[in-house]
């Protein structure tokens, strides 16, 4: 251990201090989610007790029941899930094709095309609220999943293309060539040889696209006013009435909403970090 710590010798290499710093990091990252979990398990009476309690004294699941019955939480989850999955699939399909062209084929202006695709990612989607609203309205797509799937695909397209280009470039051409000699078309070789070999990259890109879609709020709020088509982040704001804030119920709904992505993050943490830092673009 000691020879590894060259960058952090002396003061900071002390073990107790390291444990303290680790604790600070974990509290900073986890405390808000934990606090919401505690709140969701409290009764209304305990919640309004003074001074406030930290850990729930008499844990109850009643708030979870209310979270599912006060609002169609399952439907919100379903909408969010379907929109995220479909936009992720579309993003991956489109960016696999584009990334293959950019990584493998001889095209003039390759760098220009790539930077044009990336430039789009810095484009504030909020400013397109009006025209997108008009387009979706004209196409009769307001209050459909498609109204969200199309813009969400654009949201993740640059990151995914960037990740996939770098993965495709790392795959030896010989494998593809031998597949084509065996009678595969170029596209066949792409989907039968290149994509399976680049599976980690495809997967990383997919997770980022999924989280991007799962998190989006403004377009979901603006395009789908029908309560039955609300996605989770928007649906959760519906629990608060004009004056009433049923915090334990909101907390329970939040916990339900956090769990799917948290599971994804816990399982694939290393991949997510590598994807984010290789070309990740998100606020």
């Amino acid at each position, binding site marked *: *251990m000691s020879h*590894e710590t*060259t*960058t*952090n010798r002396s003061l900071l290499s002390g073990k107790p201090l390291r444990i303290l*710093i*680790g604790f600070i*990091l974990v509290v*900073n*990252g986890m405390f*808000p989610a934990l*606090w919401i979990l505690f709140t969701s398990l409290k009764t209304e009476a305990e*919640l*309004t007790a003074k001074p406030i309690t930290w850990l729930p004294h008499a844990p109850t699941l009643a708030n979870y029941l209310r979270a599912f019955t006060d609002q169609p939480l399952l439907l919100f989850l379903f909408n969010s899930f379907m929109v995220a999955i479909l936009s992720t699939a579309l993003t991956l399909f489109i*960016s696999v*094709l*584009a990334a293959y062209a950019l990584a493998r*084929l001889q*095209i003039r202006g390759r760098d220009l095309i790539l930077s044009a695709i990336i430039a789009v990612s*810095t484009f*504030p*989607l*909020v*400013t*397109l*609220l*009006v*025209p997108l609203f*008009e387009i979706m309205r004209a196409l009769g797509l307001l209050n459909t999943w498609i109204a969200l799937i199309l813009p969400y*695909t*654009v949201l993740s397209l640059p990151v995914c293309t960037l990740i996939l280009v770098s993965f495709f470039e790392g795959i030896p051409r010989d494998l593809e060539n031998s597949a084509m*000699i065996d*009678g595969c078309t*170029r*596209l066949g070789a792409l989907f039968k040889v290149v994509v399976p070999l680049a599976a980690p990259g495809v997967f990383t890109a997919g997770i980022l696209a999924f*989280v991007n879609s*799962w*998190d*989006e*709020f*403004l377009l979901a709020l*603006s395009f789908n006013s029908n309560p039955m088509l609300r996605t*989770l*982040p*928007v649906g*959760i*704001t519906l629990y608060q009435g004009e004056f009433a804030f049923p*915090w334990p119920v909101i907390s329970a709904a*939040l916990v339900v*909403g*956090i769990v799917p992505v*948290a599971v994804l*993050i816990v399982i694939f*943490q290393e991949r*997510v970090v590598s994807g*984010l*830092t290789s070309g*990740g673009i*998100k*606020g």
Partner: protein
Amino acid sequence: MATASETTLVTAHNESATKWWTRFLDPSERTLALLLLLPTALLLSLIIVYPVCRLVWTSFQNLSLTSGAPATFAGLENYALMLEDPVFWETTWNTVLITLITVPGALLVGMALALMANLPFKRKWPVRLSLLIPWALPLAFAGLIFAWFFHSEYGVVNDVLRRLGFEGVIWFNSAKWAFAAICLTIIWKTSSFMALIILAGLQTIPRSLYEAAEVDGAGRLRQFFEITLPLLKPSIVVALIFRTITALQTFDIPFTMTRGGPGTSTATLAMYIHQNTVDFLDLGYGSALAVVMFALSMGVTAVYLRMIRAKG
């Protein structure tokens, strides 16, 4: 096929090339590249390029869906209206202020988190997860969670303040405190992404540089400013560009925490665009506001790019 000699392969290829459908299946490289890039081009045209043109056009129109009247050309009317609209100035100022506070804030906190996370921990996953969870949490969730944190009666922030012997603050009744709560929330939410980017940069710096500096007698602080910071610059600049542009679009957190209140004191430009478009259905005015935001973010990108070029 695999046993066929090379010559028969070539002739077979030439024969098949004459049939249109095989040409479609195995087209020349250039055509194939164009075909593969076509879906990207179509999607970007529909969702970005055409809307941008339409946005600029609509901003010169009188177009309100509530009146049902067809669009009429309005010239610069929407822009003139904007200049006299106090809410426009207020929300724009709030947006700029949020950007000026939360971008450097997230950078500083993110840097601190990254330096801490770079220590040689035995188990890496708790630290990694602690940086990933805030990133993955939807902004709207973060807004709701922190609205509960800052609750004047039962919030954990006021509880800690009271335990430390201070008065609790009624966060959401005053513009100043509400604004502070929003900025703190944004900094918490966005600093972990900064930290991940900076951490990745830190891990590429070779140890030998620090060892050499050590031999030369440079202190830790000097090492930080003369080795760490300059080498981190590229990753920091990229993170800053994206953070600044997303800060200019701030919507979710103030919307879920305060709905812009009290009054419009914590409303952002994005919230005002949303209100004019979706609530008032005044598409002309909403477009003019969006053009201003577009100009703001283009300006920011230009400034950053110039900074990179000037120093690079």
